[in-house]
């Protein structure tokens, strides 16, 4: 199998299943590309034009974008992904792709505070022990998991459902840049210029699961991408963890169903790290973050009462058993000390 034909086929930006069918029908990637370029199989004009693109032009375009093509079985292509049936022939990547399996943290885009907060702390915890954290750069849980990685200064991988030159959603460009700057990577099987069309995302999820040794679903409804990722993980023999939620809440139903079907429930970050150590090998001890500034009195109680997803000040005050005036004063001191931050009406741990 030549790199040339595989790259040119990848540049067509077909659905992976279609590309596989064509490869089988025409015997090889080269045959498939030839068939597409010559019009022997029906394809949109854009696909035909892409199939006709010479190898050198493809490489040149990638070089201009600073994107590295990785070939299945070649250097840089993660071996644990390459071993899987259905893994993409070519990956387009930026930054560093970890050689060892990481942890995928995924969840619904329509996350509640519960899910976003947990995604972030799990992201932080896994990154802090040195495991790569893989997610999909989507809104909601995915983005929070990536942010957790950035908080902890770890290496994260964003798997896109569009071309490597497009950031979707666009507001996550700064997040992706800080991931890359922090030693993380970005990867996609789609060629430059591929739009984030809805059909591109479900196949993308098999890469998320494939790059990971275990998948953590923080919050998911009964349908959606996170469950597709979990299904892909089971198919690939990856371990699935799910964060239990309120049984009556629609946004946690997917997770609860996963647990019913045998996924491991996740409790706090330490519990997750302990469980994952059995699968991924012990991580390095988290870098001591320096002596925590001493917090006394109401501030300590408030900090201890703050759930990872944050809370409204009043909820935190009630949980800490403080009066509201006292809690407000304590909050401001913690905020000035950089131990909590505020977002709208929420108080969140961390800076």
């Amino acid at each position, binding site marked *: 199998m030549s790199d040339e034909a595989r790259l040119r086929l990848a540049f067509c930006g077909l659905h992976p299943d279609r590309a596989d069918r064509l490869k089988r029908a025409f015997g090889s990637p080269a045959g498939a590309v030839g068939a597409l370029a010559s019009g022997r199989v029906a394809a949109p004009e854009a696909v035909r034009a892409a199939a006709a693109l010479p190898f050198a032009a493809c490489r040149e375009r990638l070089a201009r974008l600073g994107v590295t093509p990785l070939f299945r079985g070649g250097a840089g292509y993660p071996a644990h992904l390459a071993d899987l049936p259905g893994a993409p022939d070519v990956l387009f990547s930026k930054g560093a792709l970890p050689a060892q399996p990481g942890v995928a943290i995924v969840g619904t885009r329509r996350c509640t505070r519960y899910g976003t907060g947990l995604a972030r702390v799990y992201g932080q915890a896994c990154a802090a022990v040195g495991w790569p954290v893989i997610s999909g750069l989507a809104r909601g849980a995915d983005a929070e998991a990536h942010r957790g990685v950035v908080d902890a200064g770890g290496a994260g991988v964003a798997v896109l459902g569009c071309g490597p030159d497009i950031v979707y959603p666009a507001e996550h460009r700064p997040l992706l840049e800080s991931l890359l700057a922090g030693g993380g990577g970005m990867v996609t099987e789609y060629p430059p210029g591929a739009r984030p069309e809805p059909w591109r995302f479900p196949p993308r999820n098999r890469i998320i699961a494939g790059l990971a040794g275990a998948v953590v679903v923080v919050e998911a409804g009964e349908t959606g991408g996170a469950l597709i990722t979990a299904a892909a993980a089971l198919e690939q023999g990856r371990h699935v963890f799910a964060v239990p939620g309120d049984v009556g809440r629609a946004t946690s139903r997917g997770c609860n169903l996963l647990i019913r079907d045998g996924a491991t429930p996740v409790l706090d970050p330490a519990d997750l790290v302990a469980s994952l150590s059995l699968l991924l090998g012990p991580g390095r001890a988290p870098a001591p973050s320096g002596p925590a500034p001493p917090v006394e009195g109401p501030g300590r109680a408030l900090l201890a009462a703050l759930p990872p997803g944050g809370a409204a000040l009043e909820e935190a005050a009630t949980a800490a058993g403080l009066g509201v005036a006292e809690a407000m004063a304590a909050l*401001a*001191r913690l905020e000035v000390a950089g131990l909590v931050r505020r977002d709208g009406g929420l108080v969140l741990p961390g800076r």
Partner: protein
Amino acid sequence: MFAAVTSVALVGIDPCPVRVEVHVGGGKEAFQLVGLPDTAVREAKERVRAALLSSGYRFPYRRLTVNLAPAEIPKAGSAYDLPIALAVLAASGMVPAAVTGVVALGELALDGAVRPARGGLGAGIVAAAAGFPCLLPPGSAEEAAVVSRAEVRVVRTLAEAVAAALGETAPSPPSPPPETASGASVDLAWVRGQALARRALEVAAAGGHHLLMMGPPGAGKTMLARCLPGMLPALTSAESLEVACAWAAAGRPRPIPSEPPFRSPHHTATPAAIVGGGSGVPVPGELTLAHRGVLFLDELGEFPPYLLDALRQPIEEGWVHIARKGIAVRFPCDVQVAAAANPCPCGYAGDRLVACTCPPAGVARYRRRFSGPLLDRFDLQVAVPRLDPADLCGPEGEPSAAVRSRVAVARRLQAERGALNRSLSRRDLDALQWRPEATRLLRAAADRLALTARGWDRVRRVARTLADLAGVGAVAEEQVAEALSLRAAG
């Protein structure tokens, strides 16, 4: 051949005496009306003529000149019929000149009956100041009756008015009913939970600070805002009269209020309805109706930007200035603004249980709507979360009256310093006493939380109010810390 009767015109919301002068002279028969009358005033001559004839008087078919002095104040409405008729009678010698020693106001019917007209309260105030009795038709007399020193007589016809002006007894209006609860105000005791918002309301009431509440639909923002008037000190009698004048000027007479007014204009209201204006003589808007009270802007994000812009300067200055061709008036609007907004278009950003469905860019766009000059005036900004159902069944909270007594103490301290904390300028704030730890925390906060200069001032104003509530002279660290948590972003 000359007579003058006193009546009243409004300058802004203030009643001002108008002398209705009538001269009956020789020459060709005419009826001249001068002194900036509007159309309704001009039509007075037909009504006056008919009313005089119907009441059994003659009409002097001579050269009649009627002047409404001072001539530069615009006069509107039909209220000058009665004083013109009295002055015509006196000037033509049909009744003794003593009829002119009154303040009179009322529209005349063609049969000589007197109908109510706007300005009853103003007439009472002018009459009390001039020491004259005040002749008013039923319907207007009740308004004037609230002025304690006014001697009000109810007159139903022109003939009764002449008799009353000459000293015959005429009935006094019934004394005004005590103000019944307006229904606008909610007692704080009915609010369950919401400890943070209660605290913010108390601070807002104590320092007169403008308050913005952000929270999902159904969190109780409107109910909380309605508690504010009941937490403010009761109006003094001078303030009550001002409020009554403002309402009367807007054509909505009301009993003298003791509780500060509460107005909640809708976001679709026109600028004229909110700020004041309208065609002809400008009429006060919602801002002036809320004078000495609370202006509540519900769904702040829905108010069009030009409306918020139009509000900014009046709120800052306490006056609405309206200049028209030939007329410049100002209406008072010393208001405290309370506003409510959803945290995002769907309303559920940051909610405990419900996921927000807004794209982040949409949330950012929505929040930008509140940014800008008006928001800078909100010293207090608090989140009002949805209640836990458990809180709904909780005990009743502290009643408004208890909070009001603490607010009164804090207000007294401010009065001793000379100004409400809301209006403290940067220089005033610098001149206040700050404990060293308080200053240290302020500096650290400015640094760490990237406070803007305005944000820094807002925190200091709120801290001063917290210190007033605590009854301490120099602002301590504790108060600065609490103020930081109540601050508006930025």
